[in-house]
């Protein structure tokens, strides 16, 4: 061991936190190297002295009682079943400024936690019901999950634009295929943007359209050769899924709009493509 290594490990050695072998190597180095030995001794003495005189702030009188009574209050509130009072904000009527600030933060954590719980609940409820044999069913599960997630996590679009000439180049640059992007505003399905998603073990394009207050996720990816027609519609948990293929691509539209609306969406989308 050289001086540089020994210096680096000195604090670990001082704290007795090195493994026995390394510890022995340092010891040996300190025996051989007077300079390092002196440096170590000075360092150890200084650190011990500093530790000895560093003030230790004990809890002031009364804090224990205050904490105990606030814990009691918290338990009492919970046992009376008043859920609202379980929130810290109402917990104590008189609050100092930092306290209020702290609780403000806790609310945003609550919101995050609630989101996660909701996501888990939906995922756990959806997945078992959809898991019937069949590749399409499995895919439908994935599609709905992607759709729900896109709405829930506030991540509807990666590129937000109603201009198909903005969305298409963006997607082309991110994918190894070039999906057709059409704006259907005139038909009542304005384009909101595009997003990357991951389905069937590959990156896919998700085009996002709006129908009144509802959103439609249109997932697009290249179809496998040999598939000629695969028109299909599935309904699950209030979500509609419509599937079709054209010469190049697989299309899956997912939404909570009515089945008629989604079929209409499919027709105008296909019509627009043909007109191009």
């Amino acid at each position, binding site marked *: 061991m050289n001086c540089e290594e020994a210096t*680096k*490990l*000195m*604090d*670990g050695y001082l*704290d007795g*936190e090195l493994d026995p072998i390394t510890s022995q190597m340092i010891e040996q180095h300190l025996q051989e190297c007077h300079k390092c030995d002196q440096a170590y001794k*000075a*360092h150890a*003495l*200084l*650190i011990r*002295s*500093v*530790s000895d*005189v*560093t*003030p*230790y*702030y*004990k*809890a*002031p009188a009364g*804090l*224990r009682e*205050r*904490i*105990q009574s*606030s*814990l*009691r209050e*918290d*338990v009492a509130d*919970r*046992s*009376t079943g008043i859920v609202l009072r379980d929130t*810290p904000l109402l*917990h104590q009527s008189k609050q*100092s400024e*930092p*306290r209020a*600030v*702290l609780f*403000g*933060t806790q609310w945003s954590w609550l919101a995050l936690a609630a989101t996660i719980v909701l996501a888990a609940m939906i995922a756990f409820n959806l997945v078992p019901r959809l898991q019937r044999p069949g590749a399409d069913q499995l895919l439908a599960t994935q599609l709905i999950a992607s759709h729900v997630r896109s709405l829930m996590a506030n991540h509807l679009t990666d590129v937000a634009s109603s201009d198909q000439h903005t969305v298409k180049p963006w997607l082309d640059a991110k994918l190894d295929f070039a999906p057709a992007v059409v704006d259907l505003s005139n038909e009542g399905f304005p384009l909101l943007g595009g997003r990357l998603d991951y389905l069937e073990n590959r990156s896919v394009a998700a085009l996002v359209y709006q129908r009144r207050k509802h959103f439609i996720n249109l997932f697009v990816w290249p179809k496998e050769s040999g598939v000629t027609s695969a028109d299909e519609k599935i309904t699950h948990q209030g979500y509609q899924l419509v599937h079709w293929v054209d010469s190049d691509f697989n299309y899956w539209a997912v939404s909570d709009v009515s089945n008629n609306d989604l079929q209409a969406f499919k027709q105008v989308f296909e019509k627009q493509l043909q007109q191009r």
Partner: protein
Amino acid sequence: MAARLKAEYASVSEDFDSSTKIVKFVPLKNEEQGAAQKQELASFEALMLPHLDAAQNLAKWLLRNEQDAQDVVQEAYLRALKSFGGFHGSNGRAWLLTIVRNTSYTLMKKNRAVDLTTTFDEEKHATDHESVNPSALLEQIEDAELVREAMGHLPAEFREILVLRHLEGLSYKEIADIAQIPPGTVMSRLARARGKLKECLAARIGKEK
């Protein structure tokens, strides 16, 4: 939490109706629920209140303000009680200190405490401490006020690690858990913190001369 759940299930009484033999589910009585919660609170207090001084010490060193420290400690105890069901370990002090630490940082971030982000001002503290001889430094270190002041000027991550090691005598593993850093970086951070502390002390002694 577990105790409370158990109590709820225990109260499902098998009240057999003689003719129909239907198991009735009796809602949990408030008293029973209350008893379970009291029991949970008692075990929480028994495990956590002994570490009140450690909690206060860490919060005070991090926040450098008595009132904030007390608020944070009280808040940390309430948070700890809420997640007490998730505590299965034996190291109550480290578990509580993790909560105290996180609660302190939440407040520091809210207060936009500059010392969270600003890097240590090397220029200001890079006085010629080399000229101070070690024995003079040692002598002065007897002065607790000097040490307190020097430590108070270090960034929060350094104050925290010095308090956990020097005042609580915690192991590197425990420090890593509390400060939420990889165990491998505890030694290097501690070494840097000690180096800066020495510099700060030397600078202060230089000034006094």
